């Protein structure tokens, strides 16, 4: 981040034409005049002396240290001047205040320039606007802010602010006094300029020739490499236009009536009073500035940086002051902890939403799936994909009579649709106990189940070759509910739990809580089935011993022979998987609907909820509920990923 600094400050306080104007900062050599141009003469102005520019008169200088006056990003140009809009109109040209670069070579490309345009001379309407060149030398003249120009002899403070966000996004603001007179966005973020460029005042060069001379008096001119805020501009203008004159007024009012001193403003005593009065006004302005701009909603510069330090909201280079304030305020508005209202209140401003529009998404440990949203690839791993479809709001698996869907441990051609069944608990040996005490319910609706085919539900450890299957099979025309365990791809035998029929089955497979003595890494499981309903009519199997750990749970269709007697067509619906030791409750999301208007600060909102969340949870701001790799909308690089 650039260190905020004043690059150039020209007070034009030199009392004589014989003394070259100098830069108070020391960035520039003393200002000179080019061949063929005239010196703007010294005249009285508001803050001491100034320089009266006119057609053919201008000043320029190069940097003492090359690049000292160069900025190709943020810049603020502020000038106290009296503009002769009528004679500018007579001149028939634009009036240049400043141009950093003469424009005729890469090193001289204009990094920033500010000019005045006569919009309507009869109504004394003028415009202040930026111009600059890109790195190819093309001149970009930007939209300007318009104002009614005060009569000649009156001085106005004009401020032009450029805030560079990116190569295609630049914010421009213009002020007259403390009035915002223009605010624009431009895509002209490619800005040229060289370290050895010339700093020109009162003119702008085109093809080496000076032109667009300013007609008016410049009292003071300064260039800063950062974005001046409205509050800071207002404070400066308030000091110059109100508080310093009031300080002088206060000194005069302190004198007893009839004091034997001159009331003539030009008298020596009144000049002395004026010095003291302005000093009082200056001090009052600093106090007023603290009073008005100490709180984070109006703070700027080092005060804002201090607020950011206090709340731990570090700014990024392209952040605007408004963005930075919003972050601090968002942080301070935290209340009600991680409750939904608390999260909404803390992030609403940052997300540019009403609090009621902020969606906070959190989960319990149960996954419910009715397939109404289709076969969501974020949740389900269907293999092979072509065998699994959604029909009539249910998951459908099909196989042709010619398909080989044999699964016997050695051959694993079956069709599966699994989801993960993670757990956060570990064993004494440090093994992650995925699948711990998982409980899976599925409704199975068989339409066509040929001989040698089986459909059902399973817990599956693909890496270890362990699987526990519970399904309905057609065994030579007899429909049986069977369980079969595999360990390291070796069948532990088929158990026929019951002889059933080709009817809707509600199947349940669960790992039981530890009870009794079991071999290491083994658990008891139980199968249960009903042909009545999801909630009633269940019969439980005897305990089944099977390895504790598995990563996947879901549905399958398999053959227990390589040849099927016909086609398979079975539907699965109303899936419920509960993983009581799963991590889902520890992940939550703040969803920002991208179709709503506004320009959200997602990074800041994400940072905000990192401070709000409990330490054992993970939270992220998202603008899509699907995980899309490399998409910033899904927070893929922030984690936890996705929100399903």
């Amino acid at each position: 981040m650039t260190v905020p600094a004043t690059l150039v400050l020209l007070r034009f306080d030199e009392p004589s034409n014989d003394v070259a104007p100098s830069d108070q900062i020391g960035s520039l050599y003393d200002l000179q005049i080019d061949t063929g141009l005239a010196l703007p003469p010294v005249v009285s102005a508001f803050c001491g002396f100034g320089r009266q520019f006119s057609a053919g008169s201008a000043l320029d200088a190069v940097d003492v240290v090359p690049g000292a006056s160069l900025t190709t990003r943020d810049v603020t140009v502020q000038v106290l001047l009296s503009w002769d809009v009528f004679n500018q109109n007579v001149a028939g040209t634009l009036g240049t205040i400043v141009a950093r670069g003469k424009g005729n070579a890469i090193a001289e490309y204009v990094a920033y320039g500010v000019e005045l345009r006569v919009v309507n001379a009869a109504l004394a309407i003028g415009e202040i606007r930026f111009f600059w060149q890109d790195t190819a030398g093309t001149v970009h003249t930007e939209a300007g802010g318009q104002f009614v120009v005060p009569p000649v002899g009156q001085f106005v403070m004009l401020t032009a602010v450029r805030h560079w966000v990116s190569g295609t996004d630049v914010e421009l603001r213009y002020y007259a006094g403390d009035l915002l007179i223009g605010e624009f966005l431009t895509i002209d973020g490619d800005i040229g300029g060289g370290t050895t460029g010339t700093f020109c005042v009162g003119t702008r060069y085109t093809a080496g020739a000076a032109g667009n001379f300013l007609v008016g008096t410049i009292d003071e001119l300064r260039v800063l490499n950062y974005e001046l805020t409205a509050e800071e501009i207002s404070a400066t203008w308030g000091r110059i236009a109100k508080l310093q004159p009031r300080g002088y007024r206060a000194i005069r009012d302190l004198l007893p009536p009839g004091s034997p001193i001159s009331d003539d403003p030009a008298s020596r005593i009144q000049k002395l009073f004026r010095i003291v009065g302005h000093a009082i006004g200056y001090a009052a302005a600093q106090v007023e500035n603290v009073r008005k701009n100490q709180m984070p909603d109006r703070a700027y510069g080092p005060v804002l940086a201090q607020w950011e330090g206090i709340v731990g909201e570090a700014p990024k280079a392209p952040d605007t002051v408004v963005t930075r304030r919003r972050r601090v305020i968002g942080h301070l508005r935290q209340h009600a902890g991680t409750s939904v209202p608390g999260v909404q209140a803390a992030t609403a401003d940052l997300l540019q939403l009403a609090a009621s529009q902020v969606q906070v998404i959190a989960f319990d440990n149960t996954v419910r799936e009715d397939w109404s949203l289709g076969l969501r690839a974020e949740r389900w791993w269907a293999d092979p994909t072509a065998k699994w479809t959604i029909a009539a709001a249910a998951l459908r698996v099909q196989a042709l009579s010619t398909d080989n869907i044999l699964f016997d441990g050695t051959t694993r051609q079956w069709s599966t649709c699994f989801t993960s069944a993670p757990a956060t608990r570990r064993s004494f040996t440090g093994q992650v106990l995925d699948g711990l005490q998982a409980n899976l319910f599925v409704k199975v609706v068989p339409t066509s189940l040929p001989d040698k085919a089986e459909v059902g539900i399973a817990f599956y450890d693909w890496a270890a070759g362990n699987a526990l299957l519970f399904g309905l099979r057609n065994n030579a025309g007899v429909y049986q509910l069977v369980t079969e365990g595999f360990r390291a791809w070796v069948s532990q035998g088929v158990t026929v739990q019951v002889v059933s029929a080709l009817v809707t089955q509600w199947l349940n497979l669960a790992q039981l809580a530890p009870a009794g003595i079991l071999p290491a890494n083994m658990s008891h499981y139980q199968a249960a089935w009903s042909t009545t309903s999801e909630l009633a009519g269940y019969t439980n199997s005897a305990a089944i011993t099977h390895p504790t750990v598995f990563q996947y749970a879901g549905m399958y269709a398999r053959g227990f022979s390589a040849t099927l007697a016909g086609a398979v067509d079975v539907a699965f619906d109303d899936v419920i998987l509960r993983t009581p030791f799963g991590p889902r409750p520890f992940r939550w999301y703040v969803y920002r609907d991208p179709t709503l208007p506004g320009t959200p600060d997602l990074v800041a909102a994400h940072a905000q909820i990192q401070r709000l969340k409990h330490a054992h949870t993970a939270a992220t701001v998202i603008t899509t509920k699907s995980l899309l790799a490399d998409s910033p909308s899904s927070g893929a690089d922030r984690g936890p990923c996705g929100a399903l």
Partner: protein
Amino acid sequence: MPPVGFFASSVGTYSSANGTEIFLTPAAARPNDVLLAAIVAPSSSPMVAPSGWSLMASDAAGAPVSMTTYLFRRTVAQTEPAQHSFGVGLGLGPQPVGLLMAWHSVDNGAAIVAHGLALVSPTSTAFPAPSIVLAHYSDLTLLVYYAESGAGLTPTFVLPAGATQLGATVYAASGGGTLVVAQYLKEAVGATGALSATCSATNTGLAAQYGVQAYPTLLAPSVIPDIPGAIGFPTIGV
């Protein structure tokens, strides 16, 4: 007050089944900005604006075009809806077309300054929007050009000098039309003169001008030196 400024637009979508012309609110719209919606729809069908929108002007073009231009205005609220649906009629042909624009500093209460529409017959590529008289220096002139597409024809426009296109919508199917909306800042009072766009083909259509009042430019605050000598720009403090 900043000068009048356009900063975003969205093209309308016609739902034949619902009979609505729907505009998404531009994401950059902020409270107190002004939204203007320019819609061209068949004259035979009534126009129903959603809540919060006021009709500034409408002008009908007779046969053979038989379309009406509407200009609506709305002030952006603190919680602005994500979209705005205008009732334009079911199953219309030609289909309505429209553009929603977001502006800074458009007067959100003033009546339309002036408006005028010209029917364009298929004898020329010129689409002259008739002159209107602006009452204020800061008035904004909106130009609306609409050309019927015909069978597979998708006309385009070359705008008059000084005009800046704000948005366009093209409906290529038979019986549709091309709409182009542009701004023209005269920066003076008086007649704007006819502002003619050139169509890519001889066509029927319409051309209209709307004078919309913007907030006036403000006098810059100033100081009058009595005796030279004051603390100017600071090196410390403000």
